[in-house]
């Protein structure tokens, strides 16, 4: 798909804003954009007279790494990208990132949140089932399984929770009764909270789950989902759009067919809107899991555009991501002072980096690792050393740092479970905890970086590339030169203080 529309590259001359902010916005540049992405911008920015400036290469680099992979670029990657003069370098980077294995780790975490992959209370999937489920989800993302197939398999799975991981979708629903199963399917695949529906509508949807049964086996905590045999396959059920259909052997399959294929189904719009939310921190329908008539999209044409493209591509998640990521709408500046436009399509909204991504980034910068384990419930779970927090296979496994920065409890599966605010406890943790200070002081990686730099300037440059993915400005170098910390080894202390300051800066803490 990428190759197909790469043939229709359009050369974009970015709008030149007077007084573009360095080093965060670029003054002018030529870059390549696909026809799809240009079409997205036309829809997103219809009626907007002065589109905002595009972000600088440095901002784009950091942003797209965090949004696609949930990792920071290394210092070398940052230096290479910034030095690259090719006009198509942003598009090429997007393609490279979408092909990297960290993509599945990061998006698997996002899906784990909404599918409630968690061994303990209140989901109680149990450790081995949670891990099997998590592995299945990440494998589907790795293979870019069409979203339609992903949904169908989750919705219609039968078998053992240990052997058919998708079955855990139903086990995580919160109840084994048809109403709970229906509510879970509605919120995940329609963005609908059935509590808002009329009782008759709720009952209609529950009807598609009325043949689902569960049974225990002799294996500890094994549970088998099966379809009650002998149901009347010709009985009539009512779809959410009011159409009556025959139940069939497994009515869930009938519902899945309608969801995926019907033009009246919110499936594509909901799926595309959630992807938009994940990239921008705000849905075109917001909250993305609260689709209802009195919560309309802020940009209906844009949502329609995205949903159509998503469905037409055969529900190819990476193709949709590629279209959005290459657009000016995504690559817009985040600096609000210059703007006359309204979000979500005006600028890239700032928000705090997620707990797991932040902890991983700090470990990457300092060359350290956190240990993760869970001793409740038994059997105990010990996560292999060096596993990144975004790759944790179970929402029950956490750490003090992750809790402080808001790893979601996966109690409800709603997207608002992931807190985005900065708190005093977070600032204390990042500024002054033994957790952070030890990582900085004991970092061999940072020590090597300092040792190999020939002067303060090149040391600062290395730190800036590693932590903020850009070169320092002259003003910043002057500030660093003037900083004279106490201690026996002021040069080393200065280096550590600068690393500390960059890790504590909002430029590090926020996506921007």
């Amino acid at each position, binding site marked *: 798909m990428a190759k197909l529309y790469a043939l229709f590259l359009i050369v974009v001359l970015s709008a030149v804003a007077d007084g573009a*902010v360095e*080093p965060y916005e670029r003054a002018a540049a030529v870059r390549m954009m696909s026809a799809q992405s240009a079409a997205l911008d036309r829809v997103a920015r219809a009626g907007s007279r002065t589109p905002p400036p595009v972000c600088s290469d440095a901002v784009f680099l950091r942003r797209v790494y965090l949004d696609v992979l949930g990792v920071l670029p290394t210092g070398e990657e940052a230096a290479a990208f910034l030095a690259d003069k090719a006009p198509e370098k942003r598009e090429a980077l997007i393609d490279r990132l979408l092909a990297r294995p960290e993509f599945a780790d990061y998006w698997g975490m996002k899906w784990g949140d909404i599918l409630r992959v968690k061994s*303990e*209370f*209140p989901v109680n999937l149990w450790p081995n089932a949670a891990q099997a489920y998590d592995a299945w989800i990440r494998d589907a993302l790795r293979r870019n399984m069409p979203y339609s197939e992903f949904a169908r398999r989750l919705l219609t799975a039968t078998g053992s929770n240990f052997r058919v991981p998708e079955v855990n979708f139903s086990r995580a629903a*919160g*109840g084994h009764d048809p*109403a709970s199963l229906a*509510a879970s399917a509605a919120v995940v695949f329609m963005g609908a*909270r*059935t*509590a808002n529906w*009329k*009782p008759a509508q*709720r009952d209609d949807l529950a009807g598609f789950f009325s043949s689902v049964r569960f049974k225990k086996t002799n294996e500890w905590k094994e549970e088998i989902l099966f379809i009650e045999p002998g149901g009347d396959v010709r009985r009539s059920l009512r779809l959410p759009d009011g159409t009556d259909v025959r139940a069939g052997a497994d009515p869930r399959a009938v519902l899945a067919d309608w969801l995926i294929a019907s033009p009246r189904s919110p499936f594509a719009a909901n799926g595309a809107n959630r992807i938009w939310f994940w990239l921008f921190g705000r849905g075109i329908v917001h909250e993305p899991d609260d689709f209802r008539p*009195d919560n309309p999209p802020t940009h209906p044409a844009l949502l329609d555009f995205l949903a159509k493209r998503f469905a037409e591509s055969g529900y190819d998640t990476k193709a949709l991501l590629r279209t959005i990521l290459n657009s000016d709408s995504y690559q817009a500046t985040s*600096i*609000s*002072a210059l703007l006359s436009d309204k979000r979500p399509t005006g600028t890239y909204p*700032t*928000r705090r980096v997620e707990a797991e991504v932040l902890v991983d980034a700090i470990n990457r910068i300092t060359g350290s690792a956190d240990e993760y384990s869970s001793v*409740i*419930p038994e059997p105990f779970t010990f996560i292999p050393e060096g596993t990144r927090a975004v790759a944790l296979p179970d929402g029950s496994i956490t750490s*003090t740092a992750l*809790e402080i920065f*808001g790893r979601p*409890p996966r*109690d*409800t599966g*709603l997207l*608002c479970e992931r*807190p*985005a*605010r*900065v*708190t*005093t*406890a977070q*600032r*204390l943790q990042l*500024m*002054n*905890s*033994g*957790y952070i*200070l030890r990582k900085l002081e004991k970092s061999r990686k940072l020590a090597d970086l300092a040792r190999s730099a020939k002067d303060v300037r090149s040391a600062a440059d290395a730190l800036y590339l590693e932590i903020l993915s850009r070169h320092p400005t002259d003003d*910043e170098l002057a*500030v*660093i030169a003037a900083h004279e*910390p*106490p*201690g026996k080894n002021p040069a080393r202390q200065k280096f550590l*203080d600068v690393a*500390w*300051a960059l890790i*504590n*800066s*909002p*430029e590090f803490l*926020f996506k921007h």
Partner: protein
Amino acid sequence: MNSILSHIPFGANLSRRALFRYSFLTTAAMMLDRRGLLAAAPPAPAARAATAKAVIQIWLWGGPCHIDTFDPKPDAGRDFCGPLNEALATNVDGIRLGKLLPNLAGQADKFSLIRGMTHGNNGHETAAYMVQTGHSSGERIVYPSMGAVVSLFKGYDAGYTGLIPPYIVLTEPQGRFSEAGFLGPRYKPFATGGDPAKPVFAVEGIVAEGISPEHQKMRRKLLGELDSLGRHFSDDPGFMDYKKCGDEAYDMILGEGAEVFRLSNETDALRERYGRNSFGQSCLAARRLVERGAKYITINYKGWDTHKQHFQTMNRKLPELDRGLATLLADLSDHGLLDSTIIWCGGEFGRTPRVQWEAPWNGGRSHYGKVFSTLVAGGGFRGGHVVGASDARGEEVADRPVYPWDLTGSMYELLGINPDATFPRTADASVRLTPEIGGDIKSGGRLAEIM
């Protein structure tokens, strides 16, 4: 964000059950939390005037054995008592304690013992959830722990202006159930980390060893000067939070926060009396926090899950518990703080009264939710009483059961929080601080006899 409440249409036709099932209140509270709209919530009407201003919860994680501590059964024989086959008389006639608690025996007039605690659950997580939230675990909604509820009604939303967080855990979080449930992360406890028994109590984030106040100030200046991005975002809500929280953090690092945790300001004699171990010094830190106005302090005292090596562990831990808790009671009393501070001490359940002498336990005890004991003191609880009883072997409640919600409800009353009220600003009137009694929810009634 002002439209948050209108954003959540609670249909009038929804049943309470449906609301729970769809976890809507959770959403509501989370969204409210984002902009602190709960802050405007009026306090729930109090059932009685508050006698307690603060709570110290001593959480014996793992489940301490009731018959080795607060409910001794010296006549039950070796299969039940093992080597701990004596009980101590106390300074209150008729109350006896386990033989390893001599200091507490001298303070029995200050506390009361609930010997008919029960919930019947033998799983750590579920039992801990029940005891800490005062709710059964069957609901789809995840309730906040008592500390988070006290933080809601007595913390920042109720005019608390202290720099010290209103809800603090010494030293490590208890896990899921010390937490805020549907109230959201704003009501989570601040966990100190560090070890109060070390020369410097390195409270995570507040007290950093090896960084002088001068160096802290230099770093703060450096951070400000290097913040090239932030200056373009002076009106961005996230960046404004970042700045405000940073100022508060430095007030803690350079001021009151560091001061309250400086246990070296206390006399050596007092520190000895508390015991020079992590638990004892946590008790001392708790008293200092109460003095500074903290509302809910949990001392998370681990190591009570004694499936094996039970009696060896008791010989080691009970003297620590005895010394720390007895000194805390006396010290609070000396400072005139006991009358306004509730202390409750217990775990998520008791342990099997019959000792498991067989392999692989070789003298261990398992989980036991059918009957267990909790100690309460201060804040309006009368001392010198025993509420309820277990049977001759500590296996069943013999008299006056007390369920977790009976206990949390009693404490809410003493704090001037109406336990029968609903959580503020939730659109459905059924989400109560304590569960409605009836059906599966049994009750022995609140602790009127000692209040």
